[in-house]
């Protein structure tokens, strides 16, 4: 239906936006590649939605330039940008049937009646709404409304599809189903997708790249595994998922990485420490730590006491406190957790040197 070459390439250059004295977006520069699935992730008020609205043309940036395929579109009104958009709450036309909703962008573009009929028919088939053509949005379930919104935004083959928290109103199982469907639509259409969410697991599952926002600033852009495994700072590290923070003293470069003292025990790290000297924070994901029967000289490890456990089905989440009082969470097999708790709660926590990364001490 769409040649991948038609997907748009977007370049944001020093975009800023102030609402009165509130700085919603600050000096944002970002390249969005042709056909990419980029997620804008951040807490509410972080600027991600403002940026999406600027991309759509509904909000005018206070400064900076926006280019689409090399053309400056900063001052181009929304109706001439031809970006497909799916809103939070879908924003379907309540007085139009499913068919009429999907036909709307084609009618606006003055397509012939036969072309409209054909393309709307194809789109309805593609999003699985056959048999619902004549229904009004109010007669549809949340998931079906979502499909109408997607179909309406994609039917005119826009160069870019903008999605503003489209799944926030759906229950969990339906959300997973719609996510899979959206991934399929992205592959089929080849269109550039820009997706806004505050749900980190959704962002990691769907995107080719994730852009993380906080307080109006773009903190990091990268592939899901890049931002998850090598976050640029503490905020990104914590926002993307649970993470343990262990103070490390006397950090200095060593063979293949760095070394330092964690709870008076030498630890080795593969991550680079050029910019970090002295005291630092070692950040490690819960799934990268494990519980060992006893201390081993060759392995990083500290002593800890199990204080609580949460059964998660496939694994158990174990909350521990280290000797020096740091709180640590690990995700371990259920039987390991049971054993740890039965053994007087005192355990040995270990992690491989390749895992974890150093953050400057005291940084927020």
């Amino acid at each position: 239906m769409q040649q991948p070459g038609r997907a748009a390439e977007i370049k944001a250059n020093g975009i800023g936006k102030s609402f009165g004295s509130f700085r919603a977006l600050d000096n944002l520069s970002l390249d969005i590649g042709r056909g990419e699935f980029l997620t804008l992730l951040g807490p509410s008020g972080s600027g991600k939605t403002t940026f999406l609205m600027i991309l759509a043309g509904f909000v005018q940036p206070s400064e900076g330039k926006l280019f689409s395929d090399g053309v400056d579109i900063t001052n181009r009104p929304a109706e001439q940008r031809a970006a497909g958009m799916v809103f939070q709450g879908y924003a379907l036309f309540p007085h139009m049937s499913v068919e009429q909703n999907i036909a709307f962008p084609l009618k606006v573009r003055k397509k012939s009646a036969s072309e409209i009929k054909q393309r709307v028919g194809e789109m309805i088939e593609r999003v699985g709404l056959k048999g619902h053509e004549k229904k009004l949005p109010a007669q549809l379930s949340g998931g079906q409304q979502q499909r109408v919104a997607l179909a309406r935004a994609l039917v005119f083959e826009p160069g870019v599809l903008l999605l503003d928290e489209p799944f926030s109103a759906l229950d969990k199982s339906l959300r997973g189903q719609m996510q899979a469907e959206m991934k399929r639509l992205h592959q089929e259409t080849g269109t550039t997708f820009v997706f806004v969410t505050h749900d980190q697991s959704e962002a990691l599952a769907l995107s080719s790249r994730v852009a993380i926002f906080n307080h109006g600033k773009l903190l990091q852009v990268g592939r899901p595994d890049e931002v998850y495994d090598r976050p640029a700072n503490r905020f990104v590290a914590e926002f993307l998922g649970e993470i343990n923070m262990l103070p490390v003293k006397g950090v200095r470069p060593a063979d293949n990485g760095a070394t330092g003292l964690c709870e008076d025990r030498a630890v080795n790290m593969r991550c680079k420490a050029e910019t970090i000297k002295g005291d630092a924070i070692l950040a490690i994901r819960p799934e990268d730590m494990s519980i060992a029967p006893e201390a081993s000289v060759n392995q990083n490890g500290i002593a800890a006491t199990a204080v609580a456990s949460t059964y998660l089905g496939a694994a158990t989440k174990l909350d521990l406190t280290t000797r020096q009082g740091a709180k640590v969470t690990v995700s371990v097999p259920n039987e390991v957790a049971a054993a740890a708790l039965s053994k007087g709660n005192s355990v040995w926590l270990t992690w491989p040197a390749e895992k974890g990364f150093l953050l400057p001490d005291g940084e927020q």
Partner: protein
Amino acid sequence: MRGTLSDRTGAALLMAPLLLFLILAYAWPFLGVVKWSFTLPTPGLGQYHALLTDDLVQSVFIRTLRIAAIVTVVSVTAAYAITVVWVRGSPVQRVVAEFCILVPFWISVLTRAFGWVALLSNRGLINTWLQSIGFISEPLTLVRNEFGVIVGMSHFLIPFAVFPLASAMRSLDERVLLAARGLGSSRMRTFWTVFVPMTRSGIIGSALITFVFSLGFFVTPAILGGGRSVMIAELIYLRIFQSPDWGLGAAISVVLVVFVGALMALLFRYVKPKQLV
């Protein structure tokens, strides 16, 4: 309906005086009017038969319906424009619109009717001005005819037509309008194909209220019509107070009340009472 039983009992108690007043001062006397319509001057359906055959009564009925229809179209259209500015305009525009909507409520219907006479009469402001700039040589007949009645009634009814429209426009999801624009629709097209259809319930409510009010107008048509554009309420007045023909006056009243009642029933099928304020 929300609230506990005691809340509802409380609400009922608070409403009771109004209900009682309506029964004593309106419903009960009206039953007397219904009785007259079947008994004066002789018992039977004679007055209702007269209603269907009397040319004068028929022409007044038709004129009333015609004026009410025109006034409804004029008022709802004007009110729609004002309401768009009031609900969606800039802060300054909103204040100005609100002022224009509320001020008429502070001026009595009589004052306003005479104000229009001063503006529209042969030697009124409008004719004098048009003559002074040489646009016309003879004064236009703007008052003591149907035109004057329509102008005066529309002026009175526009503020009432505003509220159901404002309620509909306020409850409209802004994102739907953004969606239309984002899909490539011009502002004009968005207005006609999305905004107007989405305020349909407001338009129906506004039109029915205006129409129902128009049917019962008395003072404005009496003054601005100058006896040449008699509407139904004035006809009832004439039958009761001037030519003592109480039976016919009563029969016309009954027909009017039944007709208005039917329209109100229709109105509340489309809009909830709280959407009208």
